[in-house]
């Protein structure tokens, strides 16, 4: 028995060193992301914080950085978000319900649809911009207006919303559907009264995360002609700008002060973005279902 005790206390199982190295590698991987993000945040906040003031929120842009604000850009971004939700949620959720609850998976056209949506989610945003320019701005003659921008951002995030919606719907166990059907509910009642309410928090979370991607998009908006100098409040059918476009514009100005102003606008954008993500996380935790 003595040998066993000695073995327990002094024996070193092999494979410890590789295990520790692996852990070190994992920690390093995590650190790269965290450090870079942290550095970026510190840099931006340090340079731009002094510029986040009433002027930035409430005044239009100007040639003088001391007087320039991002009011049209902030309003433009808010309008875009509002329209985006109005377009994409009904269509995205509808598509997700069709694919999960109604589509027969053994039909080729449904499979084609599925593959298509997954591929669309991976298409670069600039391509959506070109599409918008060709079909909406010129083809439909909509012009370089906010509505066209909202459509394009909507198309951009629609696949993401569909995929998130499908995952939320799929997470509702089949036993819930069976239970409802067995009581004589129609498919409409099963989907409307059981599946959708149970999937709603997941759908909302996915939608918000998709929106927070759209909020930072610059390329497609530039493509369809979001003006970089808009001194007036946007309207749905008028010319417009958005926060990322305004930031892009300011960073290209020669005066150093505009770069600091851009950092200020980045803080506004980041706060908006983090607030949306935090809300999504809160929503997910608050309504997480235990089956």
């Amino acid at each position, binding site marked *: 028995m003595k040998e066993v005790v000695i073995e327990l206390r002094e024996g070193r199982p092999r494979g410890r060193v590789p295990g520790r190295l692996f852990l070190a590698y994992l920690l390093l991987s995590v650190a790269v992301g965290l450090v870079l993000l942290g550095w970026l945040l510190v840099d931006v906040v340090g340079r731009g914080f002094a510029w986040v003031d009433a002027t930035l929120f409430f005044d239009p842009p100007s040639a003088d950085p001391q007087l320039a604000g991002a009011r049209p850009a902030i309003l433009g971004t808010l309008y875009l978000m509002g329209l985006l939700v109005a377009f994409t949620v009904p269509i995205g959720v509808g598509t997700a319900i069709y694919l999960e609850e109604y589509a*027969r*998976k*053994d039909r080729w056209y449904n499979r084609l649809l599925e593959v298509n949506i997954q591929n669309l989610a991976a298409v670069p945003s600039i391509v959506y911009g070109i599409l918008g320019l060709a079909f909406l701005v010129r083809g439909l003659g909509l012009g370089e207006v906010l509505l066209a921008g909202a459509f394009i951002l909507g198309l951009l995030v629609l696949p993401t919303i569909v995929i998130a919606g499908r995952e939320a719907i799929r997470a509702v*166990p089949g*036993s*819930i*559907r*069976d*239970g*409802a*059907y*067995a*009581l*004589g*509910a*129609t498919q409409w*009642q099963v989907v409307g*009264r*059981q599946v959708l309410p*149970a999937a709603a928090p997941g759908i909302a979370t996915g939608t918000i995360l998709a929106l927070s991607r759209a909020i930072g998009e610059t390329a497609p908006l530039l493509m369809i002609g979001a003006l970089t100098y808009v001194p007036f409040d946007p309207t749905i059918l008028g010319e417009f700008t958005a926060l990322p476009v305004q930031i892009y514009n300011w960073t290209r100005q020669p005066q150093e002060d505009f770069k600091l102003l851009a950092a200020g606008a980045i803080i506004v954008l980041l706060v908006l973005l983090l607030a949306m993500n935090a809300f999504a996380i809160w929503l997910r935790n608050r309504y997480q*279902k*235990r*089956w």
Partner: protein
Amino acid sequence: MTETHIEVRERTLASREPVFEVRDLTVSYSGVPALAGVSLDVYRRAITAFIGPSGCGKSTFIRCFNRMNDLIPSASVDGTILYHGQDLYARDVDPVAVRRLIGMVFQKPNPFPKSIFDNVAFGPRVLGMKDGLEERVEKALHDAALWDEVKDRLKEGALSLSGGQQQRLCIARALAVEPEVILMDEPASALDPISTTRIEDLMHELKREYTIVIVTHNMQQAARVADMTAFFSVEVGGDGRRTGVLVEYDETPKIFTTPADKRTEDYVTGRFG
């Protein structure tokens, strides 16, 4: 109740009024039969048990009675099931209407993620039974022997109940739409022995008003609760395909004491192989 279960059984079976007449029923998944050539009658206000080894198609079979197999796109049903003489699979029969008359309780309790009250009220609500909803819910919970345990917390979530309570809630939910038949697919297999006993006692109560069909893995359970028992087995064909078949169907005491078929005898005496 002064009658013993055995007396009730004898009285029930004396009338032998069939609710379902199954004739030469075959169920296939993607063209491969899972259950073939089943014929039997299910009698009114009796408990009919389907027993047999795993994969013998007994769960597939019970899901034919309320057309739940319609929800599986690859499943197809051949043969006939007459319900009071009406072919359940006739072209003009609406499966939603069938399920309203023939309720079902599943193997794993599946309460909706809603309050206890809303679980029981779901069926009446979707079927438009709006009048006296509260009384209806209370009666269903009484009939499922759950009322006393939940009457003070009807607004609480159903998922906070224990497994056995959840299953009785599912029974109450099925009773709330006043079906004629209740199908139970291994209703106690996920429950502890005490909860199981409560469900079995409940079944004895319910058969005064309802026709009950139960699938069970547990032979003792069939022996305890069922008036009629059908034994299913698996036949392996020359090509290695496994198909469920009905071996023997008779009054429960006969199945368990003097079965006609050797396979039944081997199974009920534990010599299944």
